[in-house]
């Protein structure tokens, strides 16, 4: 489903490789942890899948389609089938929690009754019941992170990309969220998740890709070995 073919990425004004010659294949329905030290290239890896930018070299195939060749409208359609939790959350500060989550569904042109029902459901699942009308500024770090998670999962995406989705959560809440993601994964969603959380990686026996300074340093089953 997600194929990295000899992918390299360098940023403007930074001669170092954020990623270098990555050769990888993530199957449909897989749950993959992406681990590695700070600055290893994890976020870069995820943003490439999202086509936030194109690789400097090599190509990325999503369902055998080179993402580089996608037109604007196709990128939009692709993203509607993806859910993303960003490392810095990226919430709309001017909208309430409800609106923040709802607008991901509005983009799919769902009717407002369905939207209302589903949003409240999902907010409850991530433990934010009763906070629908709050604005992001009026929330704690972990609460904001959960809004981002709710938005990412609400459309039942084909691919779920999570960048440190539990970085601001206590172990118990983290565990709950991980269970939720595992469940979503069981219903067919492919999940790629960058994390530093040793406890989480150790507890869920999944494929672990280890990045270090832009290189794949390991790719095996279970355990935070970095």
């Amino acid at each position, binding site marked *: 489903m997600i194929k990295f073919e000899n992918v390299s990425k360098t940023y403007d004004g930074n001669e170092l490789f954020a990623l270098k010659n990555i050769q990888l294949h993530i199957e449909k329905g897989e749950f993959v942890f992406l681990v590695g030290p700070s600055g290893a290239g994890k976020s870069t890896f995820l943003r490439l899948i999202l086509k936030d930018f194109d690789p400097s070299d090599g190509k990325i195939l999503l369902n055998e389609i080179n993402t580089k060749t996608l037109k604007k409208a196709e*990128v*939009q359609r692709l*993203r509607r089938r993806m859910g993303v939790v960003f490392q810095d959350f990226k919430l709309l500060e*001017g909208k309430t929690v409800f609106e923040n989550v709802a*607008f991901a569904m509005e*983009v799919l*042109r769902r009717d407002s009754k369905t939207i209302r029902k589903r949003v409240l459901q999902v907010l409850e699942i991530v433990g934010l019941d009763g906070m629908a009308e709050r604005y992001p500024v009026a929330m704690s770090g972990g609460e904001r992170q959960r809004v981002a998670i709710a938005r990412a999962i609400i459309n039942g995406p084909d691919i779920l990309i999570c960048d440190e989705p539990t970085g601001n959560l206590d172990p118990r809440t983290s565990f709950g969220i991980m269970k939720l993601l595992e469940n979503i994964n069981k219903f067919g969603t492919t999940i790629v998740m960058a994390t530093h959380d040793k406890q989480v990686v150790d507890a869920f026996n999944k494929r672990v890709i280890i990045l270090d300074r832009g290189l794949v340093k390991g790719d095996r089953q279970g355990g935070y070995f970095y």
Partner: protein
Amino acid sequence: MRTFFNFFRDAYHNIKRNTLMSTASIASVVAALIIMGIILILAINVNYVVKQVEESLEMKIYLSDNIADERVSEIGEFIKATPHVATVEYLSKEKALEEFASWFGENEDKLLQGYAQNGNPLPRSYVVKVDDAAYLENIYDTVMAQEGVTDVVYGKEYVDVLLRFNRAINMVSFVIVVILSLVSLFTIYNTIKLTIYARRDDVEIMKYVGASNAYIQMPFIIEGSVLGLIGAGAAILLIRGAYTMILGMMQVNAALPLSTTLAPFGMVIYQIAIYFLIYGFVIGAAGSLISVSKFLRTSR
């Protein structure tokens, strides 16, 4: 289905939430329209005054004493038929003398006496008014060519200065209108750009969720046009207020002949209002569309 209602609700909320941004946008529309309104009203007023002056201009056509009365009427008919001639009035020798003599206070009698003995030296004449001072020179040429016309007098220098003045005013105000329009447009465009810049994160996030360009642009465009309309409304009220105030000040200061020339705008303001609302709407919508589209193109 996301309905238009939602977009309007969002626009309403956004305007309320971003008071600063909204005031700034409205302010720049108001500023632009006030500037244009003032120039418009001034230009119309100046043209109005100039027109009035033009219409009060007289041309005198002096006739030879040696032509028959038939020829005099013939020339009268000819003048009447000349284009842009508004009114024609005949002045007989006697009437001319009377008018002339009345200029001299204590010497009037002496003067009339002189003429009684030597014959009236004043010629017959036609007094002509035109509807457009620009044609005075043409009329001069045609009439002068008529047999029996000895002289045509119309204060050429005065008219020339007036026409040039008029042309200069038109040109200067045209240049000013163009410059100020550009300035105001630029200001509005800048303000909208700033407000969208301040919400660039929103746009970015929407793109990440796969929102179509139309979906992203729509709220900005609606918001822009609503702000534009509000600005136009405010500008109309302000201009009306200022106009009324100026009229008031003029009536207090003196019974000016000018205050009457301003009056008809009590009506014109309603015509201006419509253009203003259209302008506000278009500039708001188009400004937002251009800014947000540009932003969409340049960002990923």
